């Protein structure tokens, strides 16, 4: 299967990757084993929060990502099951979307926007956490790095679940926390699968297994790596310049890559959400957002001096200031769920020292969607 991407170049800032650059030709994406072609954006990456609390197509728990060394486990993330299978899936909670009626307001007094997650759902998350932790504790890692990564992801997962089960917060915070917890769960699952299953497969060179379509898979330009994935039965996509495609390749026809939105990924940005990363493809583009976690109390106390200045990415408000000022009064009049979003439509989540400079926000927040 082969198809044409919108990107004309791969903007990766990692050395050693054969960065493909070509002015006019669009790149092509092909796969030896997957049943669709994802439309991946290989140009400028922007990580921000979308309406459903996830990170849109840049979210490794939702859409195949560019492969970087050290992030092998992203390929083993479980993909959201098809609607028909979702209900019966034992891990269905990991793709569940929180709704307002899952949120129980702290009702001792009227007019309170704060509340807790429905206790049954919170208990379900806790159950999954216990189940996952048993696996984590009994997992034998082959190397220290895997161990460390697994323990870190598991710790994040436990922290999120604790906030869901024992804490109280606004609806928005709770929703972001739910998606954060789900992401942690999926990451732990992927790491466990990587360590206990995928790393133990040694290809025998006798044909190729069918791809496991429950997996997210990954995108790469390294033929060697794509071959390894193919041999393991993990969905993989190879990105190349059209001229690099060999004539002898057995191509079963051109295909139109699937847009993330077509596949049900919410890509509409949440109003006022900060931008955590904006730049080329990079293995550390998620670092900025990791520092920002909802429901952890610690961020409430992060002082504005040293913590934000040292990070590579500075949070910026997504919308120009002018748009925000229009939005705030209109939403504050309606007591519905939109008024909850109001908190984010006020300026910065990381309050910037240069708060007064409103022009700065609007200027910097323009080039978000450029695909080149």
């Amino acid at each position, binding site marked *: 299967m082969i198809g044409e991407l919108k990107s004309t170049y791969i903007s990766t800032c990692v050395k050693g990757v054969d960065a493909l650059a070509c002015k006019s030709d669009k790149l092509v994406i092909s796969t030896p084993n997957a049943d669709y072609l994802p439309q991946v954006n290989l140009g400028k990456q922007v990580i921000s929060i979308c309406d459903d609390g996830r990170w849109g197509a840049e979210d490794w728990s939702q859409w195949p990502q560019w492969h970087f060394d050290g992030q092998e486990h992203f390929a083993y993330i479980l993909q959201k099951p098809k609607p028909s299978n979702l209900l019966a899936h034992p891990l269905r909670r990991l793709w569940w979307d929180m709704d307002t009626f899952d949120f129980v307001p702290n009702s*001792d007094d009227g007019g309170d926007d704060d509340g807790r997650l429905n206790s049954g759902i919170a208990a379900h998350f806790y159950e999954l956490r216990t189940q996952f932790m048993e696996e984590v504790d009994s997992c034998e890692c082959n190397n220290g790095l895997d161990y460390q990564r697994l323990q870190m992801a598991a710790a994040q997962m436990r922290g999120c679940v604790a906030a869901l089960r024992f*804490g*109280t917060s606004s609806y928005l915070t709770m929703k972001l926390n739910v998606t954060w917890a789900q992401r942690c769960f999926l990451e732990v699952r992927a790491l466990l699968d990587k360590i206990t299953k995928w790393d133990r497969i040694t290809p025998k060179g006798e044909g190729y297994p069918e791809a496991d379509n429950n997996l997210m898979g990954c995108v790469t330009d390294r033929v060697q790596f794509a071959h390894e994935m193919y041999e393991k039965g993990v969905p993989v996509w190879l990105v190349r310049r059209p001229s690099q495609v060999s004539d002898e390749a057995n191509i079963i026809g051109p295909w139109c890559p699937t847009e993330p939105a077509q596949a049900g990924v919410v890509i509409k940005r949440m109003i006022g959400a900060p931008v955590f990363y904006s730049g080329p493809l990079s293995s550390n583009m998620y670092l900025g957002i990791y520092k920002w976690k*909802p429901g*952890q109390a610690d961020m409430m*106390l992060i002082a504005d001096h*040293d913590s934000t200045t040292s990070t590579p990415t500075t949070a910026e408000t997504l919308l120009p200031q002018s748009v925000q000022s229009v939005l705030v009064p209109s939403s504050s009049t309606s007591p519905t769920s939109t008024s909850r979003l109001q*908190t*984010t439509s006020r300026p910065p989540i990381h309050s910037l020292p240069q708060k007064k400079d409103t022009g700065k926000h609007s200027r910097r927040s323009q080039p978000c969607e450029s695909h080149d």
Partner: protein
Amino acid sequence: MSLMINLPSIGASLCVDSKSDAVTRINMKTMDGSVNMAPFQPPTSEYSSKPSEYWANALKNVDTRPSRNIDHPRHSMFKGYTFPSSYILCGDENKNTENVLAWLLIRTRWLSHMSGVQPRTVPLPNLHQWRSYLRDLFLEHEFLRPDTCKPLTHVGEDGKTSRTARRNARSHETAKEIFSIRTPKKGDVDLLIWNDRVVWRHGQEVDFQVWDRQLVAWDVQQHNFQLELINLDRCVLADNWRSTDGAILREKKLRSVFVNEALLTVDLPRHSFGISSESWEERRPYVEAFRNAVVDWPNVPQELLTFANNDQIVERAESLVASFYCQTFFDYFGRAPCVPHLFPLKV
């Protein structure tokens, strides 16, 4: 309007409250005028929960010479109290009960606020700010009686606003910024529930049992301890917190000191009390986690580094680790830390 005042000395914070409170505050000071010594002593009120002897001793033995203070950028930010100090909630006087009622009114809101997505840019409220905030809240809601003795009327009989009213309005503004939570309106609150009981109902007398009051004190103490531990760690190991991996690792270590690794808990614990358990067996893994977290700090006593998880010396470890923590906390913030209290059992 800026509230980013440095608060190393108490004097700077007096601008927000009435004179009478200011006087009591200064009377509580020792001669050197900067360190409040009372919280270093074990609480005497029957309404307070109590620290274990290790922690009580550790507090008593803190070297409080001002020369020990370390200058660091987050001093003023984190010096205050994340939760109201149990100090202003315990005691026999009416005002303590009143503070408790006001605190219970906003407790869940405050918990939500602490876990929200917006970072806090004003320093944590100090003891004094907490006290006047809770006091104002209490008066505003007229929990126990119509407020006749202390005229709060904003407009005097002659149509002019009184000085008290102006001052109240000003302190209100200040409080709004420091506390930045929306409080319920007067009349919206019909009852307050604590410890699964209705402790106050509109138009009725307040109904606290001693145990309820002890739990209130325990809860704020525990939350303060947890958040202070994290904030202190952030100051002590600022470099580690700067990198994402470092921050995740630190958080992991610190969280394991808490039951269920939960930082903020709405419900009171029913089964496991972690580091505040009376039972040694139950406390042990948490004390070990605590030791494991603080051994990364500079100037850690050599003896703490070498402890194995050995029954005979764990008691020693607990008292050592408590002393080290209390002293470090004082060095960084110039006040007594909130230490874990034993979970009060029903009498």
